[in-house]
């Protein structure tokens, strides 16, 4: 579903992502992890069509994001860590807006259920300025899920959510994957990655340093035997796990 080949992104002369290549099949959840500045957000924003890669190709459902962006983007949803909503549109109008963009014909039938599912039915006429951060995040997530995307990109999906929201978000990720979506999420939260991801891509300084299931990564070196994902992660990005924080 998502195929990335030779992805490079340079900001001026500074490489943010170098030679990234991977694929995510329907039903898979890939976790992007790495320290700050590793290139996770650049990668996920490139996959969402927000940033143009310097080199390389990205294909979503067989459509090249560079040459056929409309077809590719109509299959995917990007949910940023910070919900960007329009000040003058109400919650319901945000869904109608996205419904028109993605040509969701049955929006009128789906809207009540979606609002209820996201616990936004009482806030349907509220403007973003009248919502808490968690509620705004729910609106952003709802906008992403409205058109039943085949590829779902989530940047730090748990930011700003309360414990109930976190639980729901995890369930949503697993459910969407079970329904056949290819999911990529970037996160600093290794326990989230361990819990919901079928595979993990560890990035450091713009490059992939490990790719595979958590168990496969653990088994890739005798040094990792018996260590936690956090310790393996720190070792892979060149940090001593025993060092003072």
């Amino acid at each position: 579903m998502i195929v990335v080949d030779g992805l490079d992104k340079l900001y001026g002369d500074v490489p943010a992502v170098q030679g990234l290549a991977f694929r995510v099949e329907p039903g898979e959840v890939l976790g992007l992890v790495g320290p700050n500045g590793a290139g996770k957000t650049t990668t996920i924003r490139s996959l969402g069509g927000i940033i143009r890669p310097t080199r390389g190709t990205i294909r979503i459902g067989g459509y090249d994001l560079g040459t056929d962006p409309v077809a590719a983007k109509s299959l995917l949803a990007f949910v940023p860590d910070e919900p960007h909503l329009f000040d003058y549109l109400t919650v319901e109008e945000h869904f109608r807006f996205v419904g028109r963009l993605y040509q969701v014909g049955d929006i009128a039938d789906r809207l009540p259920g979606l609002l209820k599912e996201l616990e936004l039915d009482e806030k349907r006429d509220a403007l973003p300025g009248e919502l808490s951060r968690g509620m705004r995040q729910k609106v952003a997530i709802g906008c992403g899920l409205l058109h039943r995307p085949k590829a779902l990109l989530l940047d730090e999906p748990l930011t700003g959510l309360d414990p109930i929201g976190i639980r729901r978000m995890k369930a949503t990720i697993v459910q969407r994957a079970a329904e056949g979506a290819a999911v990529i999420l970037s996160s600093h939260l290794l326990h989230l990655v361990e819990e919901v991801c079928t595979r993990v891509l560890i990035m450091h300084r713009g490059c992939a340093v490990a790719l595979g299931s958590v168990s496969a990564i653990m088994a890739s070196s005798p040094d990792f035997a018996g260590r936690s994902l956090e310790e393996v992660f720190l070792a892979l990005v060149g940090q001593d796990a025993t060092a003072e924080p």
Partner: protein
Amino acid sequence: MKGAFPYLIRQSVRNWSILRLRQLRSPRYLVALVLGLGYLWAVLAQRHSSSPPGGPMPGPWLETLGGLGIAVAVAWSWLFGVERRALAFSPAEVTLLFTAPVTRRWLIQYKLLRNQLLILLNVVLWTALLPGEGGGGSSLRRAVSVWVLLTTLSLHRLGASFVRTSLGEHGRFGLRRRAGSLFLGTTLLLGLAWTTRDAFSALLAGWGRGLGGLITALEAVAASPVPHLLLLPFVTMVRPLTAPSGAAWAHALIPALFFLVAHFVWVVRSDSAFEEAAADASLHRAREIGSRGVAPAVPRLAHRRVPALLTLGPSGWPAGAVLWKNLIAVARTRRAREVTGLFLVAGGAMILITFFGDARLADAVGWLAVMWAGVLVVVGPQWVRNDLRNDLLMLDVLRSYPLRGRSVVAAEVAASSAVLTAAQLGLLGVAYLAFLGSREMELGLLSRTLLLLGTAIYLPGINYAGMLIQNGAALLFPAWVHLGAGRPGGVEALGQSMLMTIVLAAALALVLLAPTLLGAGVFLLLDSLMGLGAIVPATVGFVIVLAGEIAFMVRWLGAILERTEPLTVAFVHALG
């Protein structure tokens, strides 16, 4: 601690300048700067060569008109609010300075000092643009005069914003605290209203004699005792600019400086109101920047409900959603409702006045409406901004939509063009009604009706082209164009706005050149065969060529939109 503020300003200016200079490494910015400076130089050189040497700025009538203009601007700022920019602290400033052990008075002085950077830039622009003799001494005098005028006005608007915010926050308690300022403001407004009512017939008679007659009537009204007294502070501020000699200038400068100092004291002493006003303004600024962690402010809405006309169906042109979103944003604002209401009331009033009242008054209002509709062709694209200039800060969101760049550009520009066209047609509608009972109008009713219909054909295209130029400037030069809600305003930015208007009007003229030439050519060719009917094929020619140009620009700007890095836009916007 006090040394920290000059350090912050010095380093910020230094780093800002370095970044701006680095921008010139981009050929796009360099070419634009060279072209812009070249254009400005050509305009100035042409004007200096054509103006009589040694001629001072025309005196008395400019004093009167300038004083009147400033009085109206001041009254406006008291009645309808003011530019918050001067007060808006960045999120970093709020976090680091508001919590620091410094007095509010120091914060005000810091903000005033920072505001001076913008004022000084505009002093340079105005000194170059204003007519006058070319001597070095004269230029210096003009620069000082402009600085005194702009600084006083800036301080006045700041003081007015303190009073307004204080009233909003504290109700009748604020009323008591601001009694002195309010008394002065109310006296001034009442005096202006009373004077206008009294002088109405004289001004109408002057209007009947043309522009010269109107200016003479204005001078006569301004010379009578009450208006003279009311206008005195404003005329005092303008007088140094019109002084014919060095001695007269020095004589005029002393009272102007007195006003400046009095305003400074007024503003600096308003430290408690400052806190509220600054917090309010800073929240708005933070929303504009889209700072992380800062909740969006709740917009001041006229009504949550929108007209049934603005219902969005699930199918149709996908980018229509963007157009709908931008129209909703306008329809919900108080300003849109107020303007619409004003047009309806004005239209009704014009019908009554033109048939049952003084037809001369209806004539005057009609011509004013026509004039404003024309002026809006040039300045409207800077005022109506519900397009990419507003949405570029959410470029990452726009880019994630399954839309081509050209579709986004087309929809965004269509929204602001539609609003501007509606406003102009509203004005022309008022004018049409005002002229209904006119006995002096040379054009017959049928011709006027055809003209109104003609403008409904021409205006959308012309406005669309104007808006495309504005949006193109924002896309190509995000570092030079104000992005986000609102527009750069205040007297501090007046010079920049004027310069921008000149450059963009020149660009619009260039775009309209080919369609106009073709339309005129077709008309001249067919005039002998078809008479006035030749206007139909001429219009078709005009519209086709303009549509071709627009299609080309939309595709070009769409491709640029697809290449623009969202991070770059956010970065240059945060730099201010």
